[in-house]
């Protein structure tokens, strides 16, 4: 399902129209929903979702829809992706991180559990390493930012089959479609030499592989075993280097297990929330 349709499903299911917010550097489409009527439901610490390259908040529709019944859920389409306006300047991981920070401030989110996929994972790692105060915990799903850059380039280049005029076709594997969440408009913009997308690709050069030991927030790592873009070894790297990280591997899943195995991912998010709430209660006692 293309990202645009996914977001429409999200919107129609949640019965809310897409809204836009002007952040200092860009106007972004966003969601900020949750239980407002039922006071028994816990909405103190919201979930915040950060999508990957070529995606949108709709990538998390199978998670956002059930979670929003019980929790406050917030998400934006990163500048230049989904329904958000383009950045006027160059794209970078730090620009994405700034957009997330600005949105958290604008939405008055003091603490959130971030769920981040692919490039969104790289953005969230950047935020965590800069000790962004609004992060309570991280859930990294097939996150970028910890790969070995040379291996990444080698892996992607192996999988590009051929290029047709006006289109890119992959004949081997699913790296490119997985990377772009099946949004072929992204490919078209690449072929049309959209400079902003080339700049976004440049952002993959930022890498936190050597710094992940500095992450101090509770972290859950969820990874599709068969990810052709960022191999599962990256998940073990995170598990082995981030203090007390919890790792789940989804057998048979590719780059986007939140789309292919939403029920499993949902269960793990709930387990994570229970662990966090339990830990906070113990601290209070």
């Amino acid at each position, binding site marked *: 399902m293309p990202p645009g349709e996914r977001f429409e499903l999200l919107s129609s299911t949640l019965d809310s129209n897409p809204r836009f917010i002007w952040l200092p550097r860009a106007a972004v489409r966003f969601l900020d929903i949750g239980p407002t009527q039922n006071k028994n439901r816990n909405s103190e610490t919201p979930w915040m979702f950060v999508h990957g390259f070529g995606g949108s908040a709709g990538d998390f529709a199978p998670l956002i829809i059930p979670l929003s019944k019980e929790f406050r859920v917030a998400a934006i389409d990163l500048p230049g992706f989904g329904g958000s306006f383009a950045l006027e300047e160059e794209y970078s991981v730090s620009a994405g991180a700034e957009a997330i920070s600005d949105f958290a401030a604008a939405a008055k989110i003091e603490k959130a559990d971030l769920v981040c996929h692919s490039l969104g994972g790289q953005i969230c790692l950047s935020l965590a390493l800069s000790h962004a105060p609004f992060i309570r915990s991280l859930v990294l799903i097939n996150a970028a930012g910890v790969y070995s850059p040379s291996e990444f380039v080698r892996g992607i280049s192996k999988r590009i089959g051929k290029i047709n005029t006006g289109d890119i076709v992959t004949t081997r594997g699913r790296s490119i479609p997985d990377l772009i969440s099946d949004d072929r408009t992204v490919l078209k913009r690449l072929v049309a030499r959209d400079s902003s997308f080339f700049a976004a690709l440049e952002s993959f050069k930022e890498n936190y592989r050597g710094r992940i030991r500095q992450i101090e927030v509770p972290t859950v790592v969820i990874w599709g*075993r068969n990810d052709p873009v960022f191999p599962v070894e990256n998940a*073990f790297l995170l*598990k*082995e280097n981030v203090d007390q990280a*919890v*790792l*789940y*591997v989804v*057998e048979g899943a590719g780059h986007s297990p939140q789309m292919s195995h939403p029920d*499993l991912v949902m*269960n*793990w998010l709930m387990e994570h929330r229970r662990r966090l709430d339990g830990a906070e209660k113990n601290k209070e006692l």
Partner: protein
Amino acid sequence: MMRRFCFTLIAFMGAFNTCPALGDEKKEKDGDSYLEVQYEDTVVFESPSATSPIIRRLFVGEVVKVEEYARDPDGKTWIKITIGKKRSGYVPKSKLGPAGSLPERLWNPPVIVRDERPLAAGIRGLGELFGAGLNLRYLPLTRIGVTFSVGSVLDEWKMKGTAISGGLVSFIALENLSPMIEAGVSRVSYHDGPSILRVVSFYFTVGLEWMFRCGVYVNAGITYMRSMDVEIAVEWENANDGVTEPRNYGILGDIMQNDVFQAVRPSFGVGYGF
């Protein structure tokens, strides 16, 4: 007789067959059983479920210790294994197979005794001291250190002067028994009546040292010395009187030839390392 022979042979073969096969003893030590990882992508889960958190990955060939067996609701068999001393986890039984071999005994890392006892003090005899004295040495590096000795010059079992030396010492091997090389400078003073013979020498010692695990060491070697400076000091009164009688500087005097002092002497030492 033939029947007796056959019965004996059959009994013998039966007994042989009931003996544990060579290698079986190795797989069970004190009631423990071990299995070996057979497949890539083997991971250890917190509980017997593929959707539970992963504790760590295992690599082909790793030998794991089995604690118990468990089944999940789907009937799949899991094995609870120990990881280190404190943690345990679950691995699908299909990922493990019989362990090919086990270590016979616990691995004891080699001990480099001089690394553990870098500071040593003891008695040093002969060599560049021409007598006996106290020695102190310190090895800041595994093989190289500094040494310092101070003692008395003995001639015919009489104390005739003082000696002091210092230099670098090196132990070639990391074992308890090691060749040693020492090089440094010594200053020996031999008193004969009102005058003193002072010899500043370069010395070089090669030898062997055995340092026991408990810290006690003994060493023996050959020292070569060659003077750098020789002087004779005379008491002021005698100097004023112009007394220039030839002096007998004992063992040092015997060695002096053409005002050059050169000697090859045995040396030994015994002491304790801290």
